[in-house]
């Protein structure tokens, strides 16, 4: 059984790109431990010979032909694609420096 500690929460938050506060760490640690403890009830079940379900599709969905011909179709276009960006600039998404 996994024990969730404050340092685990800090590590997970970093992996998830969340800059969480000390107060949040204190709040989430017992809550996450509670939830993880609950989901561990699945260990009661023997599943060695069970195939995993990898998606939500029904057999009819699996059988549906979803490929299309590889031809160019209309798209949003640069202006519209940038229309909702916080700070577009010269036809690009602008972000703070990367390095």
């Amino acid at each position, binding site marked *: 059984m996994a024990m969730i500690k404050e340092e685990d929460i800090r590590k997970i938050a970093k992996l*998830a790109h969340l800059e969480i506060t000390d107060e949040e760490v204190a709040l989430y640690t017992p809550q996450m431990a509670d939830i993880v403890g609950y989901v561990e009830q699945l260990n009661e079940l023997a599943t060695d010979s069970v195939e995993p379900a990898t998606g939500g599709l*029904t057999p009819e969905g699996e059988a549906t032909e979803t490929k299309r011909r590889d031809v160019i179709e209309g798209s949003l276009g640069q202006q519209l*694609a940038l229309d909702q960006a916080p700070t577009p600039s010269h036809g690009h998404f602008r972000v*703070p420096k990367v390095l």
Partner: protein
Amino acid sequence: MTIRSNIEKTLDNAEKLNGSLNSFLKIDRDYALRRAEELDNSGAKPGALHGFAVAVKDNICTSFSQTSCGSKILGDYRPQYDATAVSRLIDDGAVIIGKTNMDEFAMGSSNENSAFGNVKNPWDLDRVPGGSSGGSAVAVASGVVRASLGSETGGSVRQPASFCGIAGLKPTYGRISRYGLVAFASSLDQIGIFGQTSRDIASLLGVIAGRDKNDSTTADVAVSDYVSELDNDISGIKIGVPRALFGEGLDDEVRNSVENAIENYRKLGAEIVDVELPNSKYSIAVYYILATAEASSNLARFDGVRYGFRAEDAHELREMYMKTREEGFGAEVKRRIMLGTYVLSSGYYDAYYSKAQKVRTLLKNDFLSAFEKCDAIITPTSPSTAFKIGEKSDDPLSMYLSDIYTASANLAGIPGISIPCGLSSEGLPIGVQLLGPAWSESKLLCLANRFESEFPLSKKPEYFV
């Protein structure tokens, strides 16, 4: 009567009630009136929904309005395109009157996780409407519209339908296009429909269901004439009762009311049989592993680069991502992103994610076996009636358990409908759920319609137009 005058009345009702109920995040008066005038002037009737007012959950893209997902991180984001479900409604003549409030990114069972204030239950303003599609449920329950669109990942249409005393359908996975539905957990998400009755649901489903080239998970399965099949005979239909699910944790009044509904179905000519769903008790555990894992990946796109909110004062890229997400997301969304990140992380993947995928197979097989013995399965929709605002907000696990009867249908990809079956001693609606095999929407709607016609609720909510 013109369509314009009808829509104007609908908009007036929406505005009048919204101060008390907070079910709409945006009421699109100008757009809706313009659209109504176009329909009045065109003379042609594009479809059966000609002039029919519909409210749409604010995680379904509308190019003429905002799409916030109930989150600060999207705010007044205005999509560049319409969801397929929305464009099909519009093409049929429906008028979208506004966007409804919801738990942030559809994560919640009470609407308390909206960044824009919680929705109130029209039966009792101190209680939650359910979630996450609480705004769409209340728009229908308060009589503003006859039907609305919501979305389901683990019960987000059926549970609020139950809490608000209306009908709510979660269709088969692949029945309605998800194109333009902001993704939460893609293997579970489906657009669902609320109606004052199942007839309203049938009339919308027939228009929006079916294959869409923009969503590769929509299936090439014929769309039934749901409205004309509503009045089919239900005698001899076998309804399965999974008795083991009627035990611990189920409110006595809900149990009695659902037992009564089963007896009423028997009187209407249905045959009642016992079935077993031995792994159903694991559905919430499976759900919270798979749904959060998928969410942690889907919500990675909200990083302040291409749309929505961006945190100020960040000097480099990674800092900008982290500050934007920290300031933009609410507590429940962060909790689920972190849980999903954890179950997918190195060293834990097999123990949690792979395990849950395998139990999902067991859950699917349970339903396949059960449907060899019956045409539909009946259960409560939720273990209780609408709870008080604040009652569960500090205890996420207890909140998650309110989806115990609904999440298994999403995991198995099968359709389910919730309809009201009675009122509690406190005057709150109780919901009963019918589940069917994949693509059995027509039969479920027919069963629901028959029950609603024979046993309507004895009163309307306190807040009703």
